[in-house]
């Protein structure tokens, strides 16, 4: 893996790029404060997932995902019940600990009942100049959804314009869309390298890069990703694709990232996922031509399925079976973030679908805020061993 590769390809640039990205994932706030110092601009926070960052970027603000910081969950206890999911508790705790006090605004997408309630509490405990819900439609099967979403995006755009004191020009929005498309494309390419050669880019590093991608100025990010990709691509050629345990991870959010080490340790590799802080973040590009708002609408309506709502034409369980087959996965790990209701309601049907398809699957419960890693490791290892162990990889 990368740490011991100094004398390998030896390209300092790529190593530096990776170091910078890792550092950004571990110390995300620095990205924002530094940008503020350099540009004097405003930072708009958002929660996962599906927030149209392109709009925020086109307004000249830095979109910043409240996702990578680790908070002390107890800080949220006086405001949010302990039986709220640890993702939302963590986000609120981080705000209450003043770890993200550089934010000028916050947009919360309403993906579940928890996110539907969170903004009100947040407004009360840590008010910010711009605070908006993103009321994304919870059905995408009928024409009404698109017309509504167009209006909702217009509303958010207007709000950003008011805050900025200036209109967002169509050209600027198109540029932001192009930038983000490129950004996603590069991330997908890196994902591909991780799949083919996790010795070159470990699963954990990949997911760290995704974390970094959510907070970094995206221009700088693209530069780093390009450098990294150029070198890793070459390096990858030195490895013949080893046979590995190919796994799909499905769930709301991947946490803790150590899980990926446990997978790699046993000769496993993540070939696909549908996580909000994973592939869902890179998956969907926006059409470059035509009305940019309409393009954003279409992207949202056509995204991969998640637990927020069922899509008639793309049912999640069937989608996951298809995905696992296409990617020739030997097994599926369902990561269940404790207290995440939407995810939990899907679990039984997802599991049934896997069973019917003859794809081994396991459910692992996780949470933000530190869970016993030993147990997690044991479970992941046991699952991979069940699939055939280190030696009998396909």
């Amino acid at each position, binding site marked *: 893996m990368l740490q011991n590769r100094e004398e390998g390809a030896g390209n300092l640039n790529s190593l530096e790029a990776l170091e910078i990205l890792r550092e950004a994932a571990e110390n995300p706030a620095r990205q924002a404060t530094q940008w503020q110092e350099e540009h004097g601009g405003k930072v708009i926070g958002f929660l996962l997932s599906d927030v149209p960052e392109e709009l925020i970027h086109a307004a000249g603000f830095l979109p910043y995902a409240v996702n990578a910081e680790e908070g002390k969950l107890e800080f949220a206890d006086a405001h949010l*019940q302990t039986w709220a999911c640890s993702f939302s508790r963590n986000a609120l705790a981080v705000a209450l600990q003043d770890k993200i006090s550089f934010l000028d605004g916050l947009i919360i997408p*309403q993906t579940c009942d928890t996110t539907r309630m969170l903004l009100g509490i947040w*407004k009360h405990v840590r008010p910010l100049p711009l605070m908006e*819900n993103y009321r994304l439609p*919870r059905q995408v099967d009928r024409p009404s959804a698109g017309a509504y979403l167009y209006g909702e995006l217009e509303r958010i755009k207007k709000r950003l314009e008011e805050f900025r004191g200036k209109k967002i020009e169509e050209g600027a929005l198109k540029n932001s869309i192009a930038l983000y498309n490129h950004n996603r494309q590069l991330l997908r390419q890196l994902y591909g390298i991780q799949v083919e050669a996790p010795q070159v880019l470990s699963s954990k590093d990949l997911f760290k890069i995704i974390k970094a991608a959510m907070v970094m100025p995206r221009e700088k990010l693209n530069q780093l990703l390009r450098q990294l990709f150029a070198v890793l691509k070459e390096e990858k050629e030195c490895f013949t694709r080893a046979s590995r345990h190919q796994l799909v991870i499905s769930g709301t959010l991947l946490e803790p990232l150590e899980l990926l080490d446990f997978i790699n340790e046993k000769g496993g590799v993540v070939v696909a996922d549908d996580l909000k802080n994973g592939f869902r973040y890179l998956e969907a590009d926006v059409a470059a031509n035509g009305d940019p708002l309409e393009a954003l609408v279409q992207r949202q309506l056509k995204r991969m399925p998640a637990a927020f709502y*069922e899509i008639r034409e793309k049912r999640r369980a069937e989608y996951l079976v298809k995905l696992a087959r296409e990617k020739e996965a030997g097994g599926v790990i369902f990561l269940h973030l*404790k207290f995440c*209701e*939407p995810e939990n309601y899907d679990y039984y049907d997802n*599991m049934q679908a896997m069973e019917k398809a003859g794809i081994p699957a396991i459910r692992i419960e996780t949470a933000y805020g530190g869970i016993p890693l030993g147990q997690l490791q044991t479970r992941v290892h046991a699952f991979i061993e069940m699939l055939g162990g280190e030696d009998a990889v396909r």
Partner: protein
Amino acid sequence: MPWQTAELMKQLMADYYAQGAEAKEKGIPVAWVTAVSPVEIIYAAGLFPFYPENFGAVASARKLADKFSIVAEAKGYAHDLCAYSRCGIGDAHSQEHPLGEIVKPDLLLCCNTQCGSLSKWFEVAGRFYHAPYFLLDAPQVGMELDELTTRYYVAQLQELIAFLEDYTGKKFDYDRLREVMGYANEACRLWNEILDTAAMKPAPFGFFDACFHMAPIVTWRGTPQAVDYYRKLKQELEERIKNKVYAIENERYKLYFDHIPLWPKMRWFSDICASHHALVAVSQYTHSWAYSFDLDRPLESLAENYTEEFVNRVFEHRIQRKIKLMQKYDVDGFMLFSNRSCKPNAFGLYDKKNIISKLTGLPGVVFEADMSDLRFFSEAHIMAKLEPFFEQLESA
């Protein structure tokens, strides 16, 4: 003192469940609907609406929720999901049906104005029973109802009507819709007049009475039966007022309660309040069914009434609404139930309590439990919260 209408209620609810069974025999499609959804459309389309939430509430009141839940949990549904859904899902996977088997859906109509649990539960049920599922999506409404939301909702009602026309093969009857909405208006009007009597000092009627008499406004809304029921209840109430029959003895205080009762412990809870001469007079819960439809603009009016439901409003609006109800009923304190089953109502209550106390000067209390599941019930915890609250109330 027992209500004379209690007999009628029993009859009405027995009829309701019998109708469900009969619908199946007669080939009338059964549509699952959510408590706060435009059932008026379902009646107008000639379908039988079934309320699985009511099944959950009845199971809970009979202390069966834990039992159903354990079956659901064995399938991987966690005990932190809404207990109503655990009852429904548990029944679906059970061999035994202590409450009689839930009426199976031919189609499902969910409006998510209340919560996202219902929409997920209905998705699950749609897959389980192989029935088509239709979601009426209600975006959260801010301080004012916005045109974007109403337009979206109206467009969806039109889509629903097209979907039902397709399903039944019959043209949708708008005259019938107006008739049904007229019945709903009348029942809602009577229901709210009944609720209002809780403001009298002393009052003949309180929240726990409302919980008992609530089933018809949920399950029979839109029919003449509901109107008839509430007319009779109102008459009985007027008699009681004349005869000075009151909800509790020596009423000294009035309280506001949020929001669903602890179904399996309702008696226990109401006795505690009564022993302190406190009448729980009002709750946003029982006031949910206060629709007033404009029959000249049926779809717009349905959209306005259903999206403006309190659960679908933002934090600040919900605080205002609670305070308005507290003022209207002139309460002396308030109790907020942090209900594990109901995240959209529980989250935010800690701060709401502080804000409301600050704004109104009223004492308040928040306690934790589950509306259905006794495994999350701790008498010691609740008493530890309630005792200081009553002391505060009595010393004020």
